């Protein structure tokens, strides 16, 4: 019963503390709003491409390339026939035009500028499509010329390039991304108040009164951890709800599992705070150490900006951040229904918590008083 008494007192006082509430609730919501809005362009899945301007020279007698031009102009491509005074290749080099096509009886030659590879690729794809069609038509002409019309009019196809995304709707937008990473970051920040769970009792001298009461040290310890766990867990639920309702952040269809992973991170954060408070001598040192640890973990865990495909030593550093594992696990649950990613994240959190709490328990047993 004393455990519940101590836990309830902890929950009550934590929710009364305006500074804690601002930090654990208002701060993450504001940060999601700021980063999610400011960096939304980083997360767009479409790429706007301006109109394409193409020079061409057609020396063939039949009009298939003219048909291609007609079809392509409907897609925002503008063709201009090159005059004798103009060198098409030079114009492309000077970026006056995006490409230069030479159509002769021997085939099609395409020149594009490497400075704009996207436009070049699009042009290349369209011209390849045209060439393929032209080749097919030539073959049909050789074998069955009477079938040519039927072959090209049935199911008329004017798309020279068709892009099909492998995973079209399963990518987080900026608000979805920041809802996850800011939540996991703020959970880790829970180590800060946790570091003063026991220390504050010593500083306020209430530790003596607690020890003088018929309460075991273990009851005080468990009560403190339990209270912190519940209050931090409630804050996580509120942050998730706010981000879901206010910013329409996507938390997926397995919210229970996501919350379970976050709950193990809450346990880890509390254990980190308590463990460090027992490893250091002064009451101010844990706050400084935790602040540095959380900042670095947040930076390398992608809390401020998305880190795509890190390599080498940078990859190793990002993997040292517990937030990397957390964010990856939650993202995979939400966007890929991949539950296996949960195992390393939960394991890291729980094993880390066990070791840190063990340090705290041994220290607590050794010392007189709290």
């Amino acid at each position, binding site marked *: 019963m004393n455990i519940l*008494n101590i836990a309830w007192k902890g929950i009550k*006082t934590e929710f009364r503390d305006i500074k804690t509430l601002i930090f654990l609730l208002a701060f993450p919501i504001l940060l999601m709003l700021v980063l999610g809005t400011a960096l939304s362009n980083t997360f767009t899945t479409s790429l706007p491409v301006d109109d394409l301007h193409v020079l061409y020279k057609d020396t063939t007698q039949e009009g298939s390339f003219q048909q291609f031009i007609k079809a392509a102009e409907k897609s925002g491509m503008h063709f201009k026939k090159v005059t004798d005074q103009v060198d098409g290749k030079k114009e492309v080099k000077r970026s006056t035009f995006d490409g230069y096509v030479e159509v002769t009886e021997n085939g099609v030659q395409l020149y594009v500028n490497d400075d704009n590879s996207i436009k070049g690729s699009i042009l290349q794809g369209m011209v390849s499509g045209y060439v393929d069609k032209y080749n097919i038509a030539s073959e049909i002409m050789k074998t069955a010329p009477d079938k040519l019309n039927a072959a090209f009019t049935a199911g008329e196809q004017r798309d020279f390039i068709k892009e099909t995304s492998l995973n079209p709707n399963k990518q987080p937008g900026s608000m979805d991304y920041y809802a996850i990473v800011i939540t996991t970051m703020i959970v880790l920040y829970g180590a800060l108040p946790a570091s003063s769970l026991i220390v504050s009792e010593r500083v*306020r*001298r*209430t530790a*003596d009164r607690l*020890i003088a*009461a*018929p309460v075991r040290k273990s009851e005080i310890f468990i009560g403190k951890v339990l209270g912190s766990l519940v209050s931090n867990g409630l804050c996580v639920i509120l942050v998730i709800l706010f981000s879901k309702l206010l910013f329409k952040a996507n938390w997926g269809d397995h919210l229970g599992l996501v919350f379970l992973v976050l709950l193990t991170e809450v346990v880890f954060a509390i254990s980190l705070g308590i463990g460090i408070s027992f490893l250091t001598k002064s009451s101010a040192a844990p706050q400084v150490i935790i602040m540095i640890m959380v900042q670095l973990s947040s930076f390398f865990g992608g809390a401020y900006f998305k880190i795509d495909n890190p390599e080498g030593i940078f990859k190793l550093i990002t993997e040292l951040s517990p937030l990397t594992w957390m964010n990856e696990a939650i993202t995979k649950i939400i966007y890929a229904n991949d539950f296996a990613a949960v195992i390393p994240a939960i394991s890291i959190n729980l094993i880390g918590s066990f070791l840190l709490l063990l340090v705290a328990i041994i220290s607590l047993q050794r010392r007189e008083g709290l």
Partner: protein
Amino acid sequence: MNVLEIKNVTKKFADFIAVDNMSLAVAEGEIFGFLGANGAGKSTTINMIAGLLRCNDGIISILGKNSAKHSRFAKMNLGMVPQDLAIYEDMTAYENVKFFAGLYGLRGAELHDLVVEALEFVGLQDKHKSYPNSFSGGMKRRLNIACAIAHRPKLIIMDEPTVGIDPQSRNYILNSVKKLNEMGCTIIYTSHYMEEVEEICSRIAIIDHGKIIAEGTKEQLKSLITNTKDLWIEVKSSENLNIQAIKEIPGVEAVSIEEYFIKINSDTGVNNLNKIIEHLINNGIEIRGLQEKAPNLETVFLTLTGRNLRDQ
């Protein structure tokens, strides 16, 4: 019946012996005073009685039971008023008392009634919804006491409960201590204010260097130094006073200064008044008055320990 018994208790911190083979007994219904300068060992003794520190040697019994073996029983019967305020600033007066009383297994209506009773006892019933940060120093001290008494302990330890408060609050607390004692509580009381101890304690132990060097009623303690007298010499200024030189005058046992008074404890069998006055005049100290007083507890303490109670 003894509420508290300490038998051959020793406490060491590395090589330093804070409490050295101490023994004492406190009977039911006593207000027992602990006198000792800073570092004498009284706080360590109190902390061992309250279960905050473990003793290296010896036995502490509360209500006849070894407190090390029957920790829960001992703690259930004990209330601790620590020297430093031990209250939560982010909880109301009522919540503070309720939380601490709740740790003693009290619940529901019984808990509520006892909390209200404790707040009434210390005169904070009207402030039960207020937070301690709006309290004066005296009110905080009273709340500190309420948190220790709500569960109705048989033995209450009060470690300097009147430090840093106004005279009105001090009187309130001293009257509360007497009232608690009348209600049947046994009290262990420590203070730097000799007059407080003299006023309320039925028995006193003087502790020095971790040992009890004298113990008894105030009359018994005063009788230890019947062969001495106190000379109170009022001077204009004590700037040029050489205490050591006065101590070397035959018959002088102890010397202390309190504002414009030089207090000299001297052997009644030695007539040294002329020499003392001569010494002061020769050193340019202007004498404004002189009186002889019967020794008080402070004199006893000074004589036995060689230092003032407030010496660091």
